[in-house]
């Protein structure tokens, strides 16, 4: 198999986020620089050090899923199903498209962890072990791609990647491979994560969570915000998309993976540099071709410093000319959904020639002297976007998207 197999394009987007349901509302609010951060209400935070998170307040699962089925679905699966429905409608995928040739490839950090937390609370605090089957059946994380496959009759490969906070890019990347390979024509790919108490507690104990807001690249940044979300993309071979005569958001040129092989939680400059270099190499582009970088940009001291150092190293003298923004300033860190929502952002950026801002930016940090598109969206030609994502375990993934042109 040559690297250049079939061309792969994006033909549908589905978003469930704290700043919007559906990509239109999400995109409008990204450009407005709206924050989705609010006090967490889904569990008691009174004994935690911090209390804010990126919780989705106006997601009503019943808008997407028959009420009788809800009790069988973890929140992760509810988010996955809702975002998938939006993406499939957006791509005008009718029921008569051959379902054998469609895969469902998702990524997550914590998966159905909310269900585990419910079960644990019943056992530990209430001494109960008589919880019903419907709760137990939600625990396996592959229940999420399963419900998506079943609901939309997708009979191709069905995968769940659990590569933590880069899982969305892993899923999109492998979806791209499966189409390029000719194994399937269409892949529903993306990432999901519910707000997890375990993650909230863990990041708090790491002193990695900001008390009020997320300020990537700011000198006074105080950390990340634990958040939730779902981002689903419909990936399709170009020939199939042209045959169906559907609008195309962007083309995927390639991706790169790397592993720091150093530390479970501290990102490495070498590892993330390698990942960007691999992605650009596969995409067949040079560093001068990159018009926008969607940063991993979590807002922690270590991440932003190391990511900026890597960008400087890779892009050399060009680095100050490339806009690098972090939508985590608005959404917080949606974990496994993050890189999928950021891939959607890149697709809309190349489609519309608009770059969303890094909000909450006040004080420059000499160690992060990139152009972070502070506080205001920018209208600017974006032909090629690079989407960075890093994760616990040093599981790095970068994806390259390009404005679609037929030749």
């Amino acid at each position, binding site marked *: 198999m040559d690297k250049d197999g079939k061309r792969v394009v994006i033909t549908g987007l589905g978003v469930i986020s704290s700043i919007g349901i559906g990509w239109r509302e999400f995109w409008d609010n990204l450009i407005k620089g709206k924050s989705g951060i609010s006090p967490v209400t889904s569990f008691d935070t009174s004994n935690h050090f911090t209390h804010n998170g990126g919780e989705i307040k106006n997601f009503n699962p019943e808008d997407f899923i028959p009420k009788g089925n809800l009790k069988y679905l973890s929140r992760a699966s509810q988010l996955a199903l809702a975002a998938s429905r939006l993406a499939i409608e957006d791509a005008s995928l009718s029921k008569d498209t051959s379902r054998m040739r469609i895969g469902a490839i998702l990524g997550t950090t914590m998966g159905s962890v909310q269900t585990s937390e419910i079960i644990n609370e019943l056992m530990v605090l209430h001494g109960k*072990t008589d919880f019903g089957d419907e709760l137990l059946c939600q625990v396996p994380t592959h229940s999420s791609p399963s419900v998506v496959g079943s609901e939309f009759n997708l009979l191709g490969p069905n995968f769940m990647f659990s590569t*933590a906070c880069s899982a969305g890019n892993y899923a999109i990347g492998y979806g791209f491979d499966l189409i390029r390979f000719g194994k399937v024509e269409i892949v529903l790919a993306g990432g999901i994560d519910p707000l997890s108490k375990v993650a909230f507690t863990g990041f708090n104990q790491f002193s990695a969570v900001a008390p009020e807001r997320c300020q990537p690249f700011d000198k006074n940044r105080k950390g990340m915000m634990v958040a939730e979300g779902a981002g689903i993309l419909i990936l399709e071979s170009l020939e199939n998309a042209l045959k169906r005569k559907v609008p195309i958001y962007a083309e995927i040129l390639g991706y790169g993976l790397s592993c720091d092989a150093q530390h*479970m939680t501290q990102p490495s400059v070498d590892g993330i540099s390698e990942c960007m270099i691999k992605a650009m190499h596969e995409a067949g582009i040079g560093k001068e071709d990159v018009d926008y970088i969607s940063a991993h940009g979590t807002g922690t001291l270590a991440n932003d410093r190391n990511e900026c150092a890597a960008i400087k190293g890779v892009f050399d003298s060009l680095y100050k000319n490339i806009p690098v923004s972090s939508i985590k300033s608005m959404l917080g860190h949606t974990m496994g959904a993050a890189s999928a929502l950021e891939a959607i952002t890149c697709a809309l950026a190349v489609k519309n020639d608009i770059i969303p801002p890094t909000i909450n930016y006040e004080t420059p940090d000499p160690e992060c002297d990139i152009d972070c598109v502070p506080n205001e969206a920018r209208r600017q030609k974006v032909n090629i976007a690079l989407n960075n994502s890093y994760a616990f375990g040093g599981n790095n993934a970068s994806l390259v998207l390009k404005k679609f042109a037929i030749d």
Partner: protein
Amino acid sequence: MDRSVVITGIGVLSPIGIGKEAFWEGLKKGRAGFKNISLFDTSNFNVHIAGEIEFDPVEFLGKKGIRDLDRSTRLINSASKLAIDGSRLEITEENTHYTGVSIGTTFGSLHSIFQFDREGLLEGPRFVNPSHFPNTVINSPASQISIRFKIKGFNTTISTGFCSGLDAVYYASDFIKLKRADIILAGGVEELCEETFLGFYKLGYLSGNDGSDPICCPFDMRRNGIILSEGAVILIIEDEEHALNRGADILAKVMGYGNSFNLTGYKKNRYEGIGLKNAISIALKEASLMPEGIDYVCSCANSTKELDRMETEVIKGVFGEYANKIPVSSIKSMIGESFSASGALALTAAIGAIQRGFIPPTINYKERDNLCDLDYVPNEPRQRDINTVLVTSADPYGQNTAVVVGKYG
């Protein structure tokens, strides 16, 4: 697709043996690996046995840096060490960027999640031990392999339940063909823990739930559930040319693999044979084999009523007349159901069949079920030259994977 994918090393920890030779010997002898559970208190359950592995991680990994690693991580790192040494693989600054890790696990972090959360519930969230937090992410076992053995190409964790182990090999084989890597440590891991045990127990999956003596007897009329177990496997998956250039021993070649989903219900997950049937058909086609080109089926049957019957029907559907002539056995009769590790363990058995010329038996086979009427290699291994093996996995959530491996050269 120019590149051919071969297997050049195996690291295995199973209830019937540690290391490939001990594992194959156990299979050949028809040894059962079940014993009383020591990892947690079972006095609240009707079932007290499982396929627990006795092992000392220090023996494989030394003392340094293992204190905070959970059991899954210790198991899969030990398997990695065995595989790397057995394959005489040296990971260097030159080849590390073309070496990757692809691990299947679904509940690998479940115990760590519950323990971490439990501490928060009982002591308060400000008093939990932060050094246990990294164990709660599902990619922690895989990531620790990269950290320990300095593997920088990529690191992937796949969670597809029963299919995870085979899917990790499927993904790795794609990555070799796509030239994303030359060498990949691929496999699966699942640890035995109270939480997983409780879940399977509550859902009525375990043999002995009703107080009777647990029995693992795939395809037998008396089958009534699984015996839960644990396991860890790493296979060194490699580009053929790369393996030849470094003079590696090639144990088998990956000939074809298929993956297909079948629909499942909201309320009750169930097996529909069509997904497994499609997965097998794709794998055979990729391997350019007709059904009669398969010498042995290393089955995923786990001694549950539904799965064993479903797989029997699927084999009849795919193999037609030839179905009665092909030996089909389930090594789970000996090692139990190790979930995400099971596919990789079956693949290891398949390589043993090819390397050592025997078909592992289905032990505990006594009473025939009229709905399961194939040649299950009952109770005794069979000496035979094996050139090709089909390995299957099916999950009640609808995922299905099939891999065909064959003799090299």
